[in-house]
């Protein structure tokens, strides 16, 4: 059963990229599948953009998002080491000495994480980013799960690179910028929803994700609809009293 769902995820990843480059949604899906199928509590993805900057492009939870952002901000952490080295990086117990990433360990504990496994998004010499898995308990992500995660990352990397090779570079640039900007749109929409419904940013994110899934819409479309106050999503933006 699990094997079947893993195979389905491969097909889903390949499909999403063939159909259209909505990088944000595709990578969000990937983080969700990691949590559903692997023994991990959260997942996040860092990806390089055309400015040469490493960006957080997807996270399965608000806690994972904050922790990934912390790494980018402080330029310290296993996910960055994974990206820079192009090799998998693991830490079974972030609280244990000696600490490789003292600041990161504190931030991880604050967000409720105790163990991390990062796998590179890499094809030969080209490293696009890293897929990062977090566990709440101090224990290793199994070798099997790590291998599946690496395969997910490989498929995503190959698909992205292939897409870039197939299409005109202008088109890829245009679409990548769209995908990166839609990340900002999602943040703005989270704020709008949090304020309208008197909930936290994390809850607003979960609501939008759930709504997108239940209505078979892209997260970025739902975010746009929240901002433009589209009437068809009134049930999402109106607080149930």
């Amino acid at each position: 059963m699990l094997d079947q769902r893993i195979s389905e995820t491969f097909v889903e990843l390949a499909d999403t990229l063939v159909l259209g480059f909505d990088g944000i949604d595709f990578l969000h899906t990937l983080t969700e599948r990691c949590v559903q199928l692997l023994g991990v509590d959260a997942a996040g993805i860092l990806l390089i953009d055309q400015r040469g900057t490493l960006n957080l492009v997807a996270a399965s939870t608000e806690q994972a998002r904050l922790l990934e952002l912390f790494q980018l901000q402080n330029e310290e952490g296993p996910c960055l080491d994974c990206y820079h080295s192009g090799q998998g990086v693991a830490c079974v117990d972030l609280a244990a000495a000696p600490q490789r990433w003292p600041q990161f360990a504190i931030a991880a504990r604050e967000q409720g994480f105790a163990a991390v496994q990062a796998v590179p998004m890499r094809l030969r010499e080209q490293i696009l980013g890293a897929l990062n898995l977090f566990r709440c308990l101090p224990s290793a992500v199994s070798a099997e799960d790590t291998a599946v995660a690496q395969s997910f990352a490989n498929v995503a990397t190959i698909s992205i690179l292939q897409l870039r090779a197939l299409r005109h570079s202008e088109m890829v640039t245009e679409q990548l910028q769209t995908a990166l900007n839609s990340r900002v749109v999602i943040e703005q929409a989270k704020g709008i929803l949090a304020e309208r419904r008197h909930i936290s940013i994390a809850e607003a994110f979960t609501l939008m994700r759930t709504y997108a899934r239940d209505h078979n819409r892209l997260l970025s479309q739902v975010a746009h609809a929240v901002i433009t106050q589209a009437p068809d999503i009134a049930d999402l933006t109106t607080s149930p009293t």
Partner: protein
Amino acid sequence: MATVDRAARVLAAINEVASAEGVPVAVHHVCLACAAAVQASGVGLYLMGELGLCEPLYVTSHVSEQVAELQVTLGEGPGTEALGEDHPVLVPALGSDSSVLRWPAFAPAAVAAGVSAVFAFPLVMGAISVGALEIHRGWEGELSAAELAEVLLFADAALPWVLDHLSGPGTADGPDLPSSGFEYRWAEVHQATGMVSVQLDSDLTVAFLRLRAHAYLTGRQLSQVARDVVERRLRFEPDTDNAGAAGFGG
């Protein structure tokens, strides 16, 4: 890190142009430095005007002035098209059939003015669109990956200046320098912008300008103010703290 170096180089180039003139950095220095960095025959900066129309704010050369005038007159062109979009409009061959088909009046006229390639980048922050930065070149061909990276950074640098222009006089100190590479802080800024837009019942641009004005007035960083909003220690009211929005639209 190479990334930080590139961003730092872009900022240094902008500062250099300004200090050569012996004046504080302003938005036209961003345009001039950008033109030099990618060997453009000129750079144009457009504002999103009323009804989404294109309003030239600055041009670096006579050629760019002609291109800007053509776009405004004809109501079409790459910069016009990039305004309000969330992606750049890249035209490596303005004289090609597909370009002429896309902009039947503009493309031949711009080629006649000596422009062979145009690259237009929207100045956009999520659902906030304020303008576009447009590169004009005298020869056909794409921007290289390195040039593209630089232009994106110049566009990042131009965005706060254009927002300043929108908020009117009164914030003469100039905006914070660009956020690229430091977007982690900006996630909270974007969330706070969304929250403030609901508190003020305004659009996102007004909400962002109010947030930023509050940061100026209280002498704090924008990201700190944003965090206070997100953690609900700070609220904005429609009728108080008008300083931020006072110059906007009026």
